[in-house]
């Protein structure tokens, strides 16, 4: 028989496998744990190399409600968005999110100034309520995050959660805490492969094992520069599969947060009737943002709207069929 007509890339390396969540046997209390990464091929090219794990979705949950959300979000989340615990349960049980991403916005001095105790309490309560691990994000203000996040890390010691973000200018405090408490860490770089690599080196030089680091390439929303992150991720993946160990970390993409700040996701129908139904438009903005990132190699997506999560979850199952 004639040789099959195909062109298969011979990659000589793989993406790291990151374990999220620790079960009893591993020193934690999680009933459910996840693995991401470990691909030996570009996204969804199963005939080229092993792709053992499906990407997972972490649903955003805020400690304090955001006051500028468009109606498509407030309508669908109105019962829960003042109650983080109910919110988390709804996203996992009803929307089908794999886990939650707790955003500790309220510790920001201008956005509520909640105490470290509050943050610890909420994180621990969430872990009690759900049997999954979670992603924990600070408020984005370096000093506050450096003060609070290590305490949350300590309070959830051994659960192998994912904390973020560390950046080139501020990585030591949180990294040290996560190393000590057995958590994973998000290394954020500003749409720049070289900085991503540099930061991975810095973080691992502190003693963080490489398979506990995940890259946040900093994405833009659909229509707002998403193509930059798309190409940065493709470049990093090609380099990683070709043997660059310091880019061989999985990716986390903050699809929900970006998509819902796009004008197209927010404008009400009366202001843009030619754009169609506003709720659906917002949801699809998040969905297509997420899909583009999946095709660039996203391993964890953080997402916001329950319906968007349902849709992308089904699309991931569809993509993984082979």
């Amino acid at each position: 028989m004639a040789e099959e007509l195909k062109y298969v890339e011979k990659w000589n390396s793989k993406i790291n496998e990151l374990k999220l969540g620790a079960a009893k046997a591993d020193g934690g209390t999680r009933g459910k744990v996840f693995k991401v990464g470990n691909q030996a091929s570009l996204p969804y090219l199963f005939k080229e190399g092993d792709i053992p794990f499906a990407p997972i979705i972490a649903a955003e949950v805020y400690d304090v409600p955001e006051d500028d959300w468009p109606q498509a979000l407030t309508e669908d989340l109105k019962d829960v968005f003042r109650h983080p615990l109910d919110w988390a349960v709804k996203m996992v049980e009803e929307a089908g999110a794999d886990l939650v991403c707790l955003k500790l916005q309220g510790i920001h001095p201008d956005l509520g100034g909640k105490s470290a105790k509050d943050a610890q309490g909420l994180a621990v309560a969430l872990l009690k309520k759900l049997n999954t691990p979670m992603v924990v994000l600070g408020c984005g203000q370096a000093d506050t995050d450096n003060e609070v996040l290590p305490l949350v890390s300590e309070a959830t010691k051994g659960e192998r959660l994912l904390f973020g973000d560390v950046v080139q200018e501020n990585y030591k405090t949180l990294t040290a805490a996560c190393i000590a408490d057995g958590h994973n860490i998000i290394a954020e770089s500003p749409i720049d492969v070289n900085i991503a690599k540099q930061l991975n080196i810095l973080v691992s030089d502190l003693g963080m094992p490489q398979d506990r680091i995940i890259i946040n390439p900093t994405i833009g929303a659909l229509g707002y520069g998403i193509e930059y992150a798309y190409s940065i991720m493709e470049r990093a993946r090609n380099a990683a599969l070709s043997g660059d160990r310091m880019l061989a970390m999985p990716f986390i993409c903050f699809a929900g947060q970006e998509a819902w700040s796009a004008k197209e996701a927010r404008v009400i129908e009366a202001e843009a009737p030619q754009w169609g139904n506003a709720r659906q438009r917002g949801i699809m903005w998040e969905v297509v943002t997420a899909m583009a990132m999946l095709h660039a190699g996203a391993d964890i997506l953080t997402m916001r709207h329950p319906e968007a999560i349902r849709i992308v979850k089904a699309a991931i199952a569809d993509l993984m069929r082979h």
Partner: protein
Amino acid sequence: MALSGLDIYKLLPKTNCKKCGFQTCLAFAMQLAKKAVLIDKCPFVSDDVRATLEEASLAAIRLVQIGTGENKVSTGNETVMFRHEEKFHHPTAIGFLLDDDMGSDKLSIALDEISKLNFERVGQAINVNLIALRQRSGDDGFLKAVSEVKRSSTLGLVLMPATAEALKGALEICAEARPLVYCPKPALLDGFAAVCFRMRLPLAFRAKDMGEFSAQVKRLTQQGLTDIVLDIAEYPVSERLWQLTQARRLAIKKSERSVGFPTMAIVETEDTSQAVCQAAGFIAKYAGIVLLKFRRPEHILPLLTLRQNIFTDPQKPLQVEPNVYPVGAAGAGSPVLVTTNFSLTYYTVLGEIEASRVPSHLICVDTEGMSVLTAWAAEKFTPDHITDTMTRFKLGDIVRHKNLIIPGYVAMMSGDLEEKSGWRIYVGPREASGLPAYLKNLPHE
């Protein structure tokens, strides 16, 4: 594979006789490599060399054109696997699959809905491209529908007849519109190909894998057919992505001419949300044409936006012409803001000023397409640049005050800019989204 200037030089006589109008054979070769001159200028190249050059200059993926006039669709001629390697050239053509048995009322509603799917983003028109009409009824019904589509739409046409007779009838109605002809089953392929060859029309057909595509394409091209589209069948999404990737890779990286044609993916999934997800993947990963069955703007706009993003030239970000632009009914007393000419930045700022409903003037500074922070770091958005732009476009004649709002990210230039321009500087919000609130409570009023 494209040849380099040096590759071409090796094939030239190397006598530097200057007949071609260049000082040296090498100089001529360099221009040939850039396709800036024709090989005919050198009278001394052999037919063999000429053939080699022609073969090398053929695109790895054939450029196929559908339709005529301003709505002409070009697909193919891609040169790379990843946009960061160069760029993607021809945006995926987005079309709509309509069955002819939907009834003429529904057909005209559908055509009307499709005609409204035109949008503008960052100063660019983004539109849908094709209408694919598939025969499900008898020949009469099909031909009637073809006439209706031709009468009411100016988009490119994909004809999907069920028989060779229906194809001939349809072409009598619309051949001059240069439709893409779609062959519905292998048994009809030769008949369809003969018609397409005679009428110089592009032909799309479906095969099960690259091997079968290659074998059929070899047969068809031997019969003289030149314009072909490969329709990747409805396998699980991952298999379709694999085949779309294979066609592109084999053509570009292995110079495999028998699959060097644009590809097409038809999305028939009934669940619209899932269909959108699939289409997004095919736009990102190499489909030249995507046919859809849904047409609500809230589903189409995100896909057209994704296409615009993926097909943006990474080396040449979209830019806006530098100028002072009025936003709303701006007058001599309206506030003045300054930003860069990177389209994304400019249009984001513009959108937020519009949302504020505060008429304003927006100065767009030539930063060579860089965003605020990047341009500042690269010294393309400095007090000098801003002052020059203000003078060049005579801002002093446009407004009667001397207050200028700058982006929060470049607050550090306030003092310097105040000195250079002689204007009072106000530091605006860092993110454009803060503009509506800022403009409604202007500090200098």
